[in-house]
């Protein structure tokens, strides 16, 4: 028995080594643009990871159904990492070997780990709505693209919105605002911006961390019950959000006074609480649930209609599905822009895609033509601004669906710029990076 099991172990190890070696060598095909998809369909964050991944993959399929990018077909492969940073890095290394030219990790922890690797491997990193806030400064963070918004934008807009509801930012003086956050780089990102705003307007900021994965929040909400903050900002992800809403219900904290970040404002977060979450607000990264948009109709007709859809049909057009879809669209548009310069109908390299992302200019007409009318506003990136847009809406859960508000907010450009430059200069100094000059930017 022992020898047999040993033989088994040895043979398995051999197969393992050979498969690991060959699998990385076997993928060297040329005529397809390869899109790696880092996903988490299992684990504590699967409920939120799934729709994002479905939207991402469905959009790539849609582009293929419409003939690819100027004739270049897209290929893709998923890699499951369960929101664990070390497995995410393993996935990165695995898919990098297969010719990846752009990565979207959907995890702030993985983004931090990859930020140092991207310049070496020459692969751009899109972090649409998450990641390092200071990476907006493209002169230092040449390979990071926090497109559409960062957590500093989110924090800034959240305070603007609360101020507006209170009747002006000056009315915030003496108020108490609590931040209930996921205790990870993701949750800690908004703190500097909130502290800055607290200093400006004289409100008190309560910091209430929640440990991963966020199912234990009794102590946090006890503190909220004792201190009765005027507003609660919810910076959660996955199961933490629905738990927070249930606790708010149990504590009797008014949901109308709660404002979630855009990762705490999707269907999986509220559907377990349904009516209990009525009145809860969340930031919307431009889009909310968009089941009526043209791009969703296209996906339903050309992908799901042919039986090639990813995931359940009913979820097409939900908030996180749309986020995944838009993320994929941004990557595809980066490649398209790069093709304009480096040759249409060719497969782009990581460096070329980086140029495409840095010079992306999606105006409203283009977006409308692609079916994003009413979903998105224009995005224009540059060397100094890798974010491209900072438009945010507020959406409200009415007990059965998300309803987007009519007001569009934008981050305070002066405040944001100052903080971004401070932080990015500090990073550049630490890492001994010389920021690119405007001349170098033009290349």
């Amino acid at each position: 028995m022992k020898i047999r099991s040993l033989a088994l172990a040895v043979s398995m190890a051999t197969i393992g080594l050979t498969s690991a070696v060959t699998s990385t060598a076997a993928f060297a095909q040329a005529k397809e643009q390869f899109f790696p998809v880092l996903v988490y369909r299992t684990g504590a964050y699967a409920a939120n990871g799934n729709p994002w991944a479905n939207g991402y993959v469905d959009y790539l399929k849609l582009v293929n159904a419409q003939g690819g990018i100027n004739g270049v077909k897209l290929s893709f492969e998923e890699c499951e990492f369960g929101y664990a940073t070390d497995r995410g890095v393993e996935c990165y290394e695995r898919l990098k070997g297969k010719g990846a030219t752009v990565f979207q990790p959907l995890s702030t922890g993985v983004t931090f780990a990859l930020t140092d690797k991207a310049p070496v491997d020459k692969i751009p990193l899109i972090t649409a709505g998450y990641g390092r806030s200071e990476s907006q400064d493209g002169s230092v963070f040449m390979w990071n693209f926090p497109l559409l918004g960062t957590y500093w934008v989110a924090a800034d807009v959240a305070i603007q919105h609360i101020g507006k509801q209170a009747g002006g930012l000056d009315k915030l003086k003496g108020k108490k605002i609590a931040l209930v956050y996921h205790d990870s780089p993701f949750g800690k990102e908004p703190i500097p911006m909130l502290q800055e705003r607290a200093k400006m307007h004289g409100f008190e900021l309560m910091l209430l961390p929640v440990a991963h994965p966020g199912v234990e929040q009794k102590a946090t909400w006890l503190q909220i019950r004792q201190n009765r903050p005027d507003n609660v900002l919810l910076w959660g992800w996955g199961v933490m959000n629905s738990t927070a809403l249930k606790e708010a219900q149990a504590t009797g904290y008014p949901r109308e006074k709660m404002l979630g970040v855009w990762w705490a404002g999707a269907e999986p977060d509220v559907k377990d609480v349904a009516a209990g979450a009525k009145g809860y607000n969340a930031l919307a990264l431009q889009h909310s649930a968009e089941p009526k948009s043209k791009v969703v109709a296209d996906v339903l007709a050309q992908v799901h209609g042919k039986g090639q859809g990813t995931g359940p049909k009913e979820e097409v057009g939900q908030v996180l599905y749309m986020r995944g879809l838009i993320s994929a669209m941004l990557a595809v548009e980066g490649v398209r822009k790069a093709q304009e310069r480096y040759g249409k109908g060719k497969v782009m390299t990581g460096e070329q895609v980086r140029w495409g992302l840095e010079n992306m200019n999606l105006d409203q007409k283009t977006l409308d033509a692609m079916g994003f009318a009413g979903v998105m506003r224009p995005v224009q990136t540059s060397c100094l601004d890798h974010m491209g847009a900072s438009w945010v809406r507020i959406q409200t859960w009415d007990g059965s669906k998300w309803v987007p508000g009519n007001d569009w907010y934008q981050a305070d450009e002066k405040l944001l710029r100052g903080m971004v430059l401070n932080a990015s200069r500090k990073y550049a100094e630490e890492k001994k990076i010389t920021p690119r000059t405007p001349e170098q930017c033009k290349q």
Partner: protein
Amino acid sequence: MIYRENGQFKTSYGADQQIFPIAQDRWAVLAIIAFAFIGVPLLADEYMFRAILIPFLILSLAALGVNLLVGYCGQITLGAGAFMAIGAYAAYNFLIRIDGMPLLGALILGGLTSAAMGILFGIPSLRVRGLYLAVATLAAQFFWDWAFLRIKWFTNDSSSGSVSVSNLDFFGWTIDAPAEKYLFCLGMLVVFGLLAKNMTRASIGRQWMAIRDMDVAAEVIGIRPMWAKLSAFAVSSFFVGVAGAMWGFVHLGSWEPAAFSVDRSFQLLFMVIIGGLGSIVGSFFGAAFIVILPIFLNQMLPALGGLFGVSISTAAVSHAELIIFGVLIVFFLIVEPHGLARLWATSKEKLRLWPFPH
């Protein structure tokens, strides 16, 4: 037939007491080390280095440290992750706060800080044993998790709580290519492995084993339990701390406290239990099992499905990976409760008799 020591006569004490008394063993180990230093860098690609070999080497070092404490001294610990974290954060702080601190100096100082903390958190072992001690060491895990998340000084006031290290410089040798990182880790592991092996053969290791086997009897024959237990905690924490610093510096590059969570502690404990308690080679087997097997399963299952024309969804692969991994752990523990190292020893024993078993 080949693996037999007939005709190898030991004519001195030195020959009798060397680490590998059988010539074939000696040559095989030297050949493996030579292959690891020369052959692997020529053969392996970047993915092999970064995703498999480097994590394997560093976690082997950590498992080695845990094995010294759990396997040789019999003190169960669930705080290994915390000591990795102490090593990593201490080394980070030494590196950035002291100008001109060399990489090796930071790693060693990180290890020493971890050793000091190991002694501190080892003090309960003088009073409590077994499961109770495990719970006491768990306290170290939670305390340090908390400390690195909350005390901003440790992370150099980084707003996100994530710290990063770059430009590793080892006496003028800049370690940045994957093969260089691999060689650096391998070099460290060889040095520390030799150190550990010799320690377990020397007086200090014999004291640990005496304490493990029966502490009252050990005390009667003149072994000081306090010295033996605390030295085991110190040495083990030193190993684990250096491994933690290397995990942060060499493997991750930038990390957050979650990299050294309680999961890591359990992982390390499983490595030594599955690999073999009280065995140096067992630490390597255990680390290989825990690090490589999940990644291997994750890649093999879709390929296997493809062979039969079935496409398995990403989620299903991930679930299957966990199921098979769990089943294999149970399987190996039933087949050989003393770990993979014992399996290895048994097969060597059989090989010596082959082809004429009794």
